[in-house]
Structures are given as C-alpha cells and as structure tokens.
C-alpha cells in the first residue's frame, strides 16, 4: 500500500530527518509510528498524505508515486479541523461536497467516482451512528466535547471510503477514558473493515494497542527503520497483562537507547 524508497527529507533548516530510509506497509495492516517529539513522525505521515514532498527518493501509495494529496487517502489530525460554522452533519458531508464541487477528476476526487445522493446520505447516516454521534448532527463543534469532535472528524474521513487511513496523534488531546474508548472504536473498526492504517502517536501504550506493526523513530537522522511486530494490538483489555507490559517496556528501551546516539533535534546551522 505504501512503499518508501531511499527517502531523503529535511525542512528549510537543513536538518535531515530521513536519509536512505526505506520500508513498506502492506495492504490491510494497521501500523503505529512512535518516537520522541521532533523525530519526524508527523512529517513522515504528511509525506504519505502528499502534504510534504520528499527532497529525494520516492514514496508510492496504492502503486502510484505521490506528488499531491491523494483523494482516497483519509487524514485525521490531532486538532479535529472541523468547520466551526457548520453542524456535525454538514461537517461530515464536507468531503462529499468538495468531491461534487470538482466532479470525478481523479485529482481532487477519485476518477471513477459515482455521484449518488441516496448513497451519500446512507453513508453519512451510517458513520454518524456507527461512531455514536447521530444524535448530535445538528450541533456545532463548539457545543461538543473533544471526544465527540474527534468522532465527527473520523466520520467525515470515513464517509469518503478511503483505502488508507492516516491519523496524526488523533487521541492525544483527550482524557484517558475517552481516549481508551476511541482506541476501542478504532480497533473494532480495523477488525471489521481491514482498512490499511497508519497512526502517529507519542504514547507507548497507544502504539501497542493500535499497531500490528510498530515503527520506532529516533532523533534525526533516521536511516534504518526499527520495526516491531506486535500481535497484542486490537485488544485494549489485555492492557494489564504481563505480556503487554513487557512489550511497552521493550519499546521504552528502544526509544531510550536511540536518544543518546542521534543528533539533537532543532535547527543546526553549518
């Protein structure tokens, strides 16, 4: 689904976040990316989304080289990004409206897209009720709790039937109980849909709960991907099992060992 080949990336400050970085995400896998702040984990996600461009190397998504935002990739950010002046329902419909606005041009919307109002209505209703917010459809974002806003943002993305779901720290602004609830929601969603997903997090437990595979990033520069297979994902109730705690411990060790060797984050001037 995602292939990264010999990626080189830095922002204008010149600090290389990735060099000769290669790895792949297969269709149907649920990945998490974890690392300290400034390690480039959100940058990598934005590269997948086509919102950042590689300096060198190549990123393929769905078999095509990615140069701009891809219509069938869904993106959920930490800051829900809902329109403050639109109700939950209208926010959920926003992506559909944008697609209708452009028509099936293959650039802003999938080329083979069919416009079907009934079908759209059904999907909006389906995801609103699946996420448990169909009773809030007439509310504005300012009237919702943070968890409800994030549910609306997820509904808005899923309505577009993405084949890849990217999430950047989607639950890190939420209180623990709400966060766990949404992790459960995403677990059962992955189980049902088998959608390929990549979730960026700085929370070790969340990485283990959501990721069948966990990519661990370090302070720049990242060259060799550190990947952990994780069969404990998808079962938040195992969180107190010794196995789960060991896995978190292991990740903590990997994260700890990397921080001393890499270059410190922040701009470095030659």
């Amino acid at each position, binding site marked *: 689904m995602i292939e990264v080949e010999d990626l080189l990336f830095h922002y204008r400050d010149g600090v290389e976040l990735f060099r000769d970085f290669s790895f792949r995400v297969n269709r149907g896998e649920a990945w998490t990316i974890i690392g300290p702040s400034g390690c480039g984990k959100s940058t990598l996600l934005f590269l997948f*989304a086509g919102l950042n461009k590689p300096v060198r190397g190549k990123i393929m998504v769905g078999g095509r080289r990615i140069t701009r935002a891809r219509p069938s990739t869904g993106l959920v950010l930490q*800051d829900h*990004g809902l329109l403050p*002046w*639109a109700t939950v329902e209208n926010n959920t419909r926003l992506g559909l409206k944008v697609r209708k606005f452009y028509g099936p041009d293959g650039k802003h919307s999938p080329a083979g897209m069919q416009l079907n109002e009934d079908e759209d209505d059904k999907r909006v209703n389906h995801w609103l009720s699946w996420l448990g917010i169909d009773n809030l459809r007439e509310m504005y974002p300012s*009237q919702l709790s943070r968890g409800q806003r994030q549910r609306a943002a997820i509904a808005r993305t899923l309505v577009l039937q993405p084949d890849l779901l990217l999430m950047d720290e989607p639950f890190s602004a939420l209180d623990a109980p709400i966060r766990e609830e949404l992790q459960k929601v995403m677990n059962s969603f992955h189980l049902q849909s088998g959608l390929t997903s990549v979730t960026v997090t700085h929370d070790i437990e969340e990485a283990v709960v959501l990721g069948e595979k966990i990519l661990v990033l370090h302070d720049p520069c990242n060259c060799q991907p550190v990947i952990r297979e994780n069969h404990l994902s998808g079962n938040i109730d195992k969180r107190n099992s010794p196995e789960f705690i060991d896995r978190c411990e292991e990740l903590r060790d990997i994260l700890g060992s990397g921080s001393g060797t890499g270059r410190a984050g922040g701009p470095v001037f030659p």
Partner: protein
Amino acid sequence: MKKKATFLSTLGGVAMFFLLWQLMALFVNRPILPSPLVVVPLFLQNIRGELGLHFLASAGRVLAAIVAATLLAAPLGLALGQMPRLDRVVGPLIAILYPIPKIIFLPVIYVLMGITDLSKITLIATIIFFQILVVVRDEAAGLRKELILSVKSLGAGRRALFRYVYIPASIPAILTALRVSVGTAVAVLFIAEQSLTSYGLGYYIVIETYQVLLYPEMYTGIMGMGVLGVLLYFAIYSIELKVSKHMFVDGD
C-alpha cells in the same frame, strides 16, 4: 458566544428611550427640546411627504456605500489574508490609513469628484472599506493551519478552499464590521449632506429646519436619521443571526 437581543429587551429599550426624552423635555422646558408627544406624531405625518424623500436619499447613499465598500474590501481582505508576504508590504500602510478619520478628506473628495452623490457615497464607502478590509484579512489569516490542512486532505484545492472555508469564514466578520461601522457611516453622512445637496436628512436638519428655527420639524429629521441608523443596525444583526448561527449557540 454572543448574546442574543430579544424582542422584549429591544421594546424595553425603546420605551425607556422615549420616557427619558419626555423627562428631559419637561426638565429643560425650552423650544430647543420639544416633547416626543409633539415630535412623534409630526414625524409620522411628515415621513409620508417631503421628509420621506430626504430619508430615502440618505438611506440610498448609505446602502450604495455599504455595497460598494463590501464588494471592494472583501476580496482584497481575503487576498491579503492568504498572502502573508504581500500583507507584510501593504500592512503598515493599512495600519496608518485605518485610524485616520476619513471625513477630513471631504473637501478633497468634493474637488476631485465634483458635487455629486458619488462624492458623498465615496466618502462613506472609504470608512466602511477599511473596517471590512481589516476584519476580513485578519479572519482569513487567522484560520488555523490544521483546519486548512484537514480540508485539503478531503481533496480541496484552492477553489474549494475559497468556497468552503475562506468565504464562509469571512461572511460573519463582514457582517460584524458592517454593524459596528454603520453608526459612523450615518454620522459622516450627516456632515456630508449639510452642503452641496438639496436632498438628504443632513440637509433637512441643518438647512431646512435648524437655520429657520423650526425645532419640532428639525427633530423629525433627527428622528429620521436615528431610525435609519437603528434600522440598518438591526437589519444587519438579523442577517447575522441567520448566517452566523454557530456564534449564538451555547458552547465553550
């Protein structure tokens, strides 16, 4: 959340206003402050005649200025808000021009544009123009990056961003700017209409009534101008209530 003005509270305000006027008329007890009991019936009678024409002339000028200013300032504000580099160049100029009272250019505009309605409309439009320009620019520039990114991730390019983000984001700001600047606009109109015209409430109040000591008639003109300001204010306010529903809901 903004506070909603209710019909009852507005009615209460009107009642208190007339009561206060009546009390002051009784207290001052001179021809320069006639009682509303004299002025209001006279106003209702005259508004159907000559006074009505003066009212329409004034209202037309303000409305024309509002439309012209909005059509020019809103797109420019949107553009500046999205182009921080351009804004850094012209921003300081706007910051200087914005607080200058535009009325002082009255003679200049008269000479340059001639003694037509156009010059009066231009003067008022200039005032509203800067108000709208500044709020729309700030609104467009203040949209959070995350919001733009997430709408982009839904497939929106520049055109869809305009249609679904920038325009709906700036309409409430335009309405608020109009509502707060409409009072100044009417005040400037009053001054601009005192000369070089033969229609308009400003002309009626100063030339036709005040200078010939027709105080009750003068007050009908004053009432006309007051009504004009109040009507415009509440007309814009009611559009705001409809368009900016999200600002009037309970929330955090």
